[in-house]
């Protein structure tokens, strides 16, 4: 761990201006990812701004009937919030399928969004990694890449985003409220995380000093028909090899609206609106689900150890959509 200075922020504005004064300043909330990264010398902030006292702890209804979740609401509080359980069960299930009770009690909403991508090489400072040390190379491309991306990767980085919560938020089309240099702004969820391209060191589109203050959920439409399916190497406490957040709105037997977001396959939660649109107006059927699955994975590229994710993702999509339509989430 490197040396750093530490300060507590009491107001959002103070936190943001403090962060803009130091190039390597970082906010710390739950710390579940950051403390780990700092111990491994992967993250080396020179200044920590503790934001735990900021007034961002509320879950409240918005005027349009949606929900605003303060950035400091813990993952556990969010998952078990009665309004979330009732209106956004997809989000509850996604959160509870991730990490452990202990971690969910510490991890915050904003922190979950900002957790770094997961990759053996990124976490091991003895190895090259373009994300950690830009230009040093990506050994994962030819190395141990069973967990890695099959969609949207680049020749510089094939890491995957590890969050379950974010996959649900992508499907639910959440909006992220950010306060930064230019004041407050709203970032559509799809625009928060980025693909690695030739700048894999950047996981998100946020600028230095930007502070996530809240996540807003549009009114819940999918409570009856949604599922979060996580496929992993053991029954709990493992990152997703592939996960699917599927949500549909039905009118009679016809699909009015469908959302499919994938986790474990890309540098960000993966969505493809064109593929989802294939379901609109169709009767729910395995064939229709397969068509979406094919469309979602059409550009997928496997590496030595992760090619199986392509077939797995397709099957998981079909399974998840089936469960969502039937309203029965298998455990």
């Amino acid at each position, binding site marked *: 761990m490197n040396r750093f200075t530490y300060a507590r922020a009491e107001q959002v504005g103070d936190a943001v201006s403090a962060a803009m004064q130091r190039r390597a300043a970082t906010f710390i909330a739950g710390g579940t990812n950051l403390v780990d990264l700092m111990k491994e010398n992967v993250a080396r902030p020179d200044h920590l701004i503790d934001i735990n006292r900021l007034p961002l702890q509320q879950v409240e209804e918005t005027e349009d009937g949606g929900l605003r979740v303060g950035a400091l609401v813990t993952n556990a509080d969010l998952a078990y919030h009665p309004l979330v359980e009732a209106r956004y069960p997809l989000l509850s299930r996604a959160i509870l399928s991730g*990490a452990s009770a202990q971690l969910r*009690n510490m991890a915050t909403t904003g922190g979950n969004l900002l957790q770094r991508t997961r990759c053996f090489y990124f976490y091991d400072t003895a190895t090259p990694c373009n994300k950690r040390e830009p230009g040093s190379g990506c050994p994962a491309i030819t190395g141990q890449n069973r967990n890695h991306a099959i969609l949207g990767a680049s020749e510089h980085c094939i890491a995957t985003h590890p969050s379950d919560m974010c996959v649900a938020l992508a499907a639910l089309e959440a909006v992220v409220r950010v306060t930064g240099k230019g004041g407050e702004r709203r970032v559509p969820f799809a625009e928060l995380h980025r693909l690695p391209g030739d700048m894999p060191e950047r996981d998100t589109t946020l600028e230095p000093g930007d502070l996530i203050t809240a996540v807003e959920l549009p009114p819940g439409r999918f409570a009856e028909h949604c599922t979060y399916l996580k496929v992993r190497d053991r029954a*709990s406490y493992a990152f997703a090899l592939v996960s699917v957040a599927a949500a549909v709105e039905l009118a009679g037997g016809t699909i009015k609206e469908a959302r499919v977001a994938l986790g474990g396959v890309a540098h960000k939660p993966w969505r493809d609106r064109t593929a989802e649109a294939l379901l609109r107006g169709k009767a729910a059927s395995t064939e229709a689900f397969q068509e979406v699955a094919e469309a979602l994975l059409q550009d997928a590229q496997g590496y030595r150890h992760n090619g199986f994710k392509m077939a797995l993702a397709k099957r998981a999509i079909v399974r998840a959509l089936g469960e969502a339509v039937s309203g029965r989430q298998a455990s």
Partner: protein
Amino acid sequence: MKISFKVNGAARELDAPPLQRLLDALRLVLGLTGTKEGCAEGECGACTVLLDGEPVNACLVPVGQCQGREITTVEGLGAAGHLSPLQRCFIDHGGAQCGICTPGVLISAEHLLRRNPDPDDDAIREALAGNLCRCTGYQRIIESVRAAAVLRRADARDVGDPRDVGDARGARDVSHDRQEAP
């Protein structure tokens, strides 16, 4: 920085770097080595403690964040010299083997039983999902928690306040497991 907090009911104060892990503050500074270190990465649950009543991994909690808060460790589970129902049942049902995961498991289970006095096996598994064990194969941990739930409910009927169960039961404890650390 100066930090004051409560550990197992007692007010403690220490001067620590803000990112010192709560785990090191407990083990190295306060000498409470009952909380164990199994990975230091939030992946095993051996260091689980209650922070304001909620289980967290002490290896990932900067002690700076504990200002004014209340921490419960395994040392705080029973009353002085007496075992809590969970501790009792972990002995009777073989829930502890090498003993490294045990304190964290006990804390997670304590939290579960405070919330849910009659958990089924799936609820127990879910509550303990963040606690790895390499010795027991888990089955006896589940058996121990199940038995402790029964014991707590029985004692709650006798005593009233379930939070007092540990003491009440401990007072009647006629353990022959008296061997302490040699």
